[in-house]
């Protein structure tokens, strides 16, 4: 083979297409850079990208095609946790390593699938890292939860409370909304009735915008803190004034002060005309981790790459990343951001402990 092929399964259509496309554009940009520097194993890297539409069946078909037809040596992807869970089975069947930088559902790594690696902190890990400091950082005692009713939101409401309570906080409401919800007035009214000092949220861009606007519109003025889209350019732009003073619990934010990040942000702004979101950050991480492992394996044999991935010790945008026995990343830095004048400043950091 002339090139080293890496497969990407991301949603390019469907409900999360926006974020999926950012990911795809990022890896394309970065692969050009890597190839300009000589690629890997002396060959050029070739990306083969397929749309999984955040739909398990489509993602499975895409992964099948990538592995069987295109003979990719490794897979990056599947955005939504359910799609990743489905693609994992394909990776295992065909013995090809798969890395995700986005799917945070805790169960994914718990199954012990030998071909699956996760280069991002799970929701419980984020909660453990930040929960204890939230009461002080937000100067709040009474916390209310309002999250998406899926695995992500549920695992947040299951894992954060203990950590928050250990920092002196108290939980006063647990509410959910659906992926399909267009407005959240009832839930907000319920949360409001509980009189919280801060609201903890989990939402992707579209819902995050509507959610933060509607919270303010119903006269709730307490600080908001969330996992998800809360520090991304698109959210800040769309939500406008409603984004001011919103905290984000994030794995990556473009205002991180480090030479490697500043270089990345500069290139990203130049080429893609916006600030990199956490999905761009995730793309940066997983691509480099994969290429690094291929380089260390010294071969395109997926089995050897898998073995090399297990020994990952990568320094990137968010510091050092290693994988534990279940292939869950740890050691990286996570950030608490605060939107001020449209810019998400880092106000607090923490490190993900080895599970």
């Amino acid at each position, binding site marked *: 083979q002339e090139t080293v092929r890496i497969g990407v399964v991301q949603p390019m259509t469907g409900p999360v297409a926006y974020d999926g496309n950012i990911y795809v554009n990022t890896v394309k940009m970065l692969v050009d850079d890597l190839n300009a520097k000589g690629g890997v194993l002396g060959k050029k890297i070739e990306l083969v990208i397929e*749309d999984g539409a955040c*739909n398990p069946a489509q993602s499975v078909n895409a992964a099948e095609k990538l592995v069987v037809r295109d003979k990719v040596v490794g897979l990056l992807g599947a955005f939504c946790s*359910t799609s990743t869970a489905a693609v994992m*089975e394909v990776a295992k069947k065909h013995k090809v390593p798969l890395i995700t930088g986005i799917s945070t559902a805790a169960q994914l790594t718990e199954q012990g699938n030998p071909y699956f690696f996760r280069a991002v902190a799970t929701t419980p890990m984020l909660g453990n890292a930040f929960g204890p400091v939230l009461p002080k950082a937000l100067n709040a005692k009474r916390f209310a939860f309002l999250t998406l009713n899926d*695995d992500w939101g549920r695992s947040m409401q299951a894992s954060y409370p203990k950590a928050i309570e250990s920092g002196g906080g108290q939980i006063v409401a647990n509410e959910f909304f659906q992926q399909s919800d267009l407005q959240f007035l009832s839930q907000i009214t319920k949360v409001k009735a509980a009189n919280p000092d801060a609201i903890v949220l989990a939402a992707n861009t579209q819902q995050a915008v509507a959610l933060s606007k509607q919270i303010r519109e119903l006269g709730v003025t307490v600080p908001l803190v969330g996992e998800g889209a809360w520090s991304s350019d698109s959210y800040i732009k769309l939500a406008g004034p409603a984004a001011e003073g919103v905290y984000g619990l994030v794995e990556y934010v473009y205002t991180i002060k480090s030479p490697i990040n500043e270089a990345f942000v500069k290139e990203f702004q130049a080429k893609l005309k916006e600030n990199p979101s956490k999905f761009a950050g995730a793309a940066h991480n997983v691509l480099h981790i994969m290429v690094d492992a291929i380089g260390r394996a010294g071969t395109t044999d997926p089995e050897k790459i898998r073995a090399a991935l297990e020994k990952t010790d990568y320094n990137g945008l968010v510091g050092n990343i290693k994988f534990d026995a279940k292939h869950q990343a740890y050691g990286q830095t996570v950030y608490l951001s605060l939107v001020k004048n449209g810019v998400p400043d880092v106000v607090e950091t923490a490190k993900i402990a080895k599970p």
Partner: protein
Amino acid sequence: MRGLPVAAALIVVALCAVPLVVHDEYFLHLFIVSGVFVIAVLGLDLIVGYVGQLSLAHAAFFAMGAYTSALLFVRLKWSMWAGLPAAALLVGLIALVLGSVILRTRGHRFIIITVVFAELMKLVATNWVDMTRGFMGLPGLAVPPLWIPGIGTIDITAKSHFYYVVLFAAIVAFLLCRALVRSSVGHKFVLVRENEPLAESLGISAFRYSMIAFVVGAALAAAAGSLYAHYVGFVSPDLFNFSYVTIMLIMVILGGKGTLVGPALGAVIFTFLPELLREASHWRMIVFATILIVATLFMPKGIIFPLITHLVPRNWRLRNARAA
């Protein structure tokens, strides 16, 4: 008419030869998925094509079959061989209960109530977390070995093996549906479709025969769902998505509703088409939708049926003319 069994035999032989000829596992994968859809879509054709009621609950039956089989596997360690019939039975029963309520409505109301039912089932799958693990779905389903008397146990996890399981199931489903639609029951389906009040006034219970089609169709969908779950190894609430019922309907209607060969071929074509359109990347769904609209507009009887009626009789006519 003597040509027909020969043609059927040739087709079966050709289908059996697929894994020997097609070494591309990705294509084999698509063949397997097509086979699964053939089973589901034949079931849909009974209610849509034969009884003439547009059911949008069919993907939900498919998903419920997948879930039943998956839950039996995960919670009770039932293998697919037990899970598949159990899924067909259970979902058939659910369809019976559902049908006793909704088959009293007709036309648009029926269409929409079936959509609503599918959405409700999706809510159950996502919210009954203790049982279904909600959005996370159920991973790690396995394909069981196959025990054939006299030969022993065979591992069928390889695609080239599982293909035959699906092929066998699809042929069984086809023969079952064929027997059904050729029986007096099938004749009554058609009478109900053509003029329901008249059929009723001549002594045929539209309710009863719609119900038979609905329940058998649901059971077939569930069986297909069970195969699919074990093949892919994973089920999640996304199986309830509207896009599945859309694609199944396209298979039935563009294949040629009210025939069996049509929807079966439709299942194969419309499994491959979206995949072949991957080349079109961002234009993929646009091209697909355009094909769908144009085909529906200009080929109301489906793409396959007119082909058959236009090509086959001409050949026969020629042959008969020569014989005469």
